[in-house]
């Protein structure tokens, strides 16, 4: 799986969780907070995306991430671990 594909999964779930955001308009360099997500939204986006990617990243590894791109990197690391 490519990083782009991971980003697409995250973007899709951000859009599904918000009122007026289109997946295509999401910039991975931004944080979900920039798109109006509160913590409950982020829990939902992260847990739905992890289920979809069939990975489980410990919460402690997610607390220091600053933007969607970094979240995708973290997810990709686990996707690759699963394949390796």
């Amino acid at each position: 799986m490519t990083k782009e594909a991971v980003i697409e999964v995250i973007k899709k779930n951000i859009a599904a969780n918000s009122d007026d955001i289109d997946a295509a308009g999401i910039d991975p360099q931004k944080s979900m907070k920039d798109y109006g997500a509160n913590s409950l939204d982020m829990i939902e986006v992260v847990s739905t995306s992890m289920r979809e990617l069939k990975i489980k990243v410990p919460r402690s590894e997610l607390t220091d991430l600053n933007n969607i791109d970094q979240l995708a990197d973290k997810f990709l690391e686990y996707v690759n671990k699963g394949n390796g």
Partner: protein
Amino acid sequence: MSERMKLASEPSGVSVLKMDDAKGRNIFSAEFITEFLHALDELERERRTKVLILCGQQDVFCGGAEKQALLDLCDGKAVVRDLVLCERLVEVPFPVIAAMEGHAIGGGLAVGFCCDIVIAARESRYGAVFMSLGFTPGMGCTTLLAELVGPYLASEMMFTGKRFRGSELEGKGTHINYVLPRTEVVAKAWDIAEQIAEKDARSISLLKHALSVNKKKLLVDARHQEDLMHRISFSFPETRRTIQELYPE
């Protein structure tokens, strides 16, 4: 007039209580609860209200518990003030219509299901998110949510913590009276309220009392089991950590 609660009464007997805490986003701060209860006291004292429309802000009906109250529960302190809201909505001598234009989350959803008639918005989200934060549901959810949405959907909502859009609930055969576009929610509430206000005030109050008997019982049942589960689930160290990390500021 209080800062967070806007109260208006029409000569017809329809009153409107708008929860309008722009800063706190309608979460249960001590001030929010006090002003909410004062507003209900005032309506009861004046004895002119035949039916109450309870609404919130356009995007947030009610947000539920305050972070500090949850952390107090982690410390083993009893926090009972939130629960009084539910009791009062069930006990007031007039029917209450919940016009939930905006999201209703956790205890905020409980405020909705303690009302007599419930109108939701397609665009908004309704969720019993307690378990996502690590602890078991409260505010009457374990007995009364099933009354509103049906027992199996209530289980799904409580176990998963998922916030359902009104549009998702619409197709599920819940007992929510109406799921409408957000812009039509308050108008529908008024339509129903005006029909009720044509009726005799004494009979309205008698009927409210009779129809509330079961709700009161369910709230008491909920209180017992929810208090017990809270004493256990709030004592998990993980729960405190989850609340501290994840609860919206």
